[in-house]
């Protein structure tokens, strides 16, 4: 799921330099720009933002005001401060205000990118799921009494939404400029979503008074009214199934690994191979036995020059890598 990072700075040259510099990270995050706090508020209303990077001194609404607004209205969104007028007092104030990072200008784009990637990774620390029916999955969350923040992306339209759970209770939902029950109805009407789970919930206030079940039913009812035609049966799968264009998907995956890790990624080959299917099925059963959820990836070292990464699917996807490859990094990139 590509995440949106909002960059806020009245220095437009700086903004564009950052946007150019972040192009190589486009597989991980997309960049939105705003020239002051007020413009940033508009972007926050119109989009699901995962992270805000803001300057402090700006006209109309400065970085401190913006930080305070975000902490009050979007406490789930982490904020990184960048400033050319750094003092220890300012840094202390920004951190007290809720900023997760503070970088004095000038800085290396790579340093900021690293901090962005580290912060964004927390969004999916609780796992990611592809191609699931949101209603079905969320009932599980309720049953498990989980406290978490779930970011969802509708598969067909690319719409993004966010749900906040505390002990299995839905506190709030957000989609573009909708919030609360209306946003929840919208999200629950999505057929198939990709989602990432962040442990913990920054929201404390309960803005949704209804239980999950009636919300899901109401969403279904509204959807049925809008679209009388047959609703496709939702399918919960562990990973995005390799569909009609496996070659393209494999190419994209290869490109992502090479771009994110670079030439030292040790990637050798990427293909689908039914030979592994029965083994993958057996390995998957071990996870079922211990209630570990869907099987997403396996890394196999057979003690020779190549190691294997297996991705379960209709046919197993096999990635062969040099045995000296940075395996944890590769697994992380594939999991994202």
């Amino acid at each position, binding site marked *: 799921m590509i995440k949106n990072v909002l960059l806020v700075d009245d220095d437009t040259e700086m903004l564009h330099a950052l946007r150019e510099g972040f192009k190589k990270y486009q597989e991980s995050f997309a960049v939105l720009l705003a020239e002051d706090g007020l413009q940033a508020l508009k972007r926050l209303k119109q989009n699901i933002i995962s992270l805000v990077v803001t300057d402090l001194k700006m006209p109309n609404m400065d970085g401190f005001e913006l930080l305070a607004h975000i902490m009050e209205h979007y406490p789930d969104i982490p904020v990184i401060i960048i400033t050319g007028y750094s003092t220890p007092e300012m840094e202390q104030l920004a951190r007290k205000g809720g900023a997760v990072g503070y970088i004095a200008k000038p800085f290396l784009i790579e340093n900021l990118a690293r901090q962005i990637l580290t912060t964004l990774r927390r969004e999916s*620390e609780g796992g990611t*799921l592809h191609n699931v029916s949101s209603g079905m999955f969320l009932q599980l969350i309720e049953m498990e009494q989980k406290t978490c923040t779930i970011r969802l992306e509708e598969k067909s339209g690319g719409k993004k939404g966010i749900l906040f759970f505390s002990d299995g209770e839905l506190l709030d939902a957000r989609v573009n400029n909708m919030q609360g029950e209306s946003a929840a109805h919208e999200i629950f009407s999505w057929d198939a979503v990709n989602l990432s789970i962040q442990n913990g919930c920054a929201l404390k206030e309960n803005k949704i008074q209804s239980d999950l079940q009636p919300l899901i039913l109401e969403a279904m009812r509204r959807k049925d009214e809008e679209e009388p035609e047959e609703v496709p049966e939702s399918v919960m799968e562990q990973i995005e199934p390799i569909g009609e264009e496996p070659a393209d998907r494999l190419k994209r995956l290869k490109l992502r690994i090479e771009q994110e890790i670079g030439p030292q990624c040790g990637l050798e080959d990427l293909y689908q191979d039914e030979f592994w299917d029965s083994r993958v099925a057996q390995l998957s*059963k071990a996870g079922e036995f*211990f209630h*570990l959820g869907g*099987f997403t990836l396996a890394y196999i070292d057979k*003690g020779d020059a190549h190691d294997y990464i297996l991705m379960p699917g209709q046919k197993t996807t096999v990635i062969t890598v040099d045995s000296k490859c940075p*395996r*944890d990094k590769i697994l992380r990139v594939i*999991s994202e």
Partner: protein
Amino acid sequence: MSVSNCMERMRERFKDILRTDGVSGVMLFSFNGDLIFKEFKSSVNEEPESRDWSLFIESLEGMRETDLIFEKGRIYIRKTEIGYMVILMALFVPIAMIRLNCDILLPSLKPAKSGKKFGRFFKKKGG
């Protein structure tokens, strides 16, 4: 050596791995799929000895190290001279640390000299 002494020694060997935050259990299987040893930090829904693990162990053939990632956890498997060591853990556990612990542990997991073979401590389902 009595079974309880043997278990105690195994527990001692696995204690560093079990102490790692997020590791929930360790099991040791023979190459035939018999459960030789198990230790869990908390109770499990179903005891592993209730299941026939032979097909699972068979599927590990030829693998020296296997890292299985699931939505809600991870299973790290390491081949030893006496069978497969299976470690259950949460997704956040630093796998490099676990690998290192296993490297340290491997030399101690060798077949006992004649007359001191590891027996099976747990009965198979229906056995």
